[in-house]
């Protein structure tokens, strides 16, 4: 997902406090920033929300790549609005993380020097305009699968950020599907581009949910804390079940020869992605890892004079006001 392979921290604290805390969560209460919480809960959330925020920000790059080359002015305006939304999503999430006592600059620095990760999906290139369709349809679609249940997460600020984000996401997925429909109904060359985009983004999209975590201790803890709401496999299955008919409608073929509808389970059987590729991308060896991080570092460095200058100006103005009073 936008937060993958989040390790939850073991917690060693007053058992009585821990029991009371868990009881609040089980009763569906929201945990707010100033409430007592186990150190592990706080740490795990900072890692998870931070990674989620980084994904929103880095996720602007593959789509930003096509803003200047969108085929029409309208498509350009739509893509620009979509990418701007993602910046907002990053902001909502950074703010949620900040309520846990980490600063924005700290989070940014941890992204820039590689201590924190972002979703593997954004390390794949966007080669044609059809990729803008595939990203909106599949990548935002997969993100929605995960974000909708997270609206009910136990941590108040995270839950509220998710509610805002979910309101905006369906526009993202629909604009992507709209591009796919246009391409799939277009000339043979356009349809081929659409099929090629689906071929390249299918398995990376399945990887977004992370490897199977059925037996993972970490996800068990996170699920008890309600900061993870479903297993990775559950969400992946849901995504496949939802997406396959949408591909059929487009007249495109999901690149999985073993994909079959299973009468008995009421779900599609499908081929797992190549998990060695996933781990390789996480390690930094995906097609675009270096490029993405370099772009973020450049933006941060190039923006330094603006950040410093505006702050100096604001401080000077405040000092002058103080002197006048």
């Amino acid at each position, binding site marked *: 997902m936008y937060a993958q392979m989040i390790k939850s921290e073991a917690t060693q604290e007053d058992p009585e406090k821990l029991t009371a805390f868990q009881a609040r969560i089980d009763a569906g209460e929201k945990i707010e920033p100033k409430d007592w919480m186990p150190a592990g809960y706080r740490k795990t959330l900072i890692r998870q929300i931070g990674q989620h925020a980084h994904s929103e920000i880095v996720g602007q790059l593959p789509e930003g790549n096509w803003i200047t080359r969108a085929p029409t002015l309208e498509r350009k305006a739509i893509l620009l609005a979509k990418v701007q939304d993602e910046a*907002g999503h990053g902001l909502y999430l950074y*703010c949620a993380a900040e309520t846990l*006592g980490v*600063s924005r600059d700290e989070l940014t620095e941890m992204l820039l020097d590689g201590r924190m990760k972002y979703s593997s999906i954004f390390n794949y290139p966007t080669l044609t305009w059809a990729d803008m369709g595939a990203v909106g349809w599949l990548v935002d679609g997969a993100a929605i699968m995960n974000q909708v249940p997270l609206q009910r997460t136990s941590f108040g600020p995270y839950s509220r950020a998710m509610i*805002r984000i979910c309101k905006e996401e369906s526009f993202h997925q629909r604009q992507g599907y709209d591009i796919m429909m246009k391409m799939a109904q277009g000339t043979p060359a356009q349809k081929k581009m659409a099929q090629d985009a689906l071929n390249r983004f299918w398995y990376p999209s399945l990887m977004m949910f992370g490897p199977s975590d059925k037996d993972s201790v970490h996800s068990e803890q996170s699920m008890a804390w309600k900061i993870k709401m479903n297993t990775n496999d559950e969400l992946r299955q849901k995504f496949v079940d939802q997406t396959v008919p949408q591909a059929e409608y487009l007249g495109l073929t999901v690149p999985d020869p073993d994909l079959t509808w299973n009468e008995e389970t009421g779900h599609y059987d499908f081929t797992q992605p190549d998990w060695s590729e996933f781990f390789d991308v996480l390690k930094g060896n995906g097609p675009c890892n270096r490029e993405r991080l370099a772009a973020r570092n450049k933006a941060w460095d190039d923006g330094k004079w603006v950040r410093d200058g505006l702050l100096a100006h*604001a401080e000077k103005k405040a000092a002058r006001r103080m002197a006048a009073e």
Partner: protein
Amino acid sequence: MSSPNAAYPDTPDTNAKPKRHEWPLWEIFIRGQHGMSHRHVGSLHAPDAEMAIKNARDVYTRRNEGVSIWVVEARHIAASSPSDKGPLYEPSESKVYRHPTFFDIPEDVGAM
């Protein structure tokens, strides 16, 4: 009852860290179209109030969500403490007569 303090927690290790030169955090309040009060919608960083309002417009009113923006620097917000929940809110629990449904008015009297 403890005295009011900041809206966000100071985690143990934040104090130990060197002070950062970061734009301050602002809390954003938006009044929607239909005459409701300003409502807290989120926060953002900005060097000053003017920029905070501009950024708030870009982030929190992209879909006609509001007609008016308030910004308050987060450090100026005083907040009650979770441990005061009892002393602050319990007194009202026993005062059911503050709700109109406490009183039985005969139907013959008509709407009231």
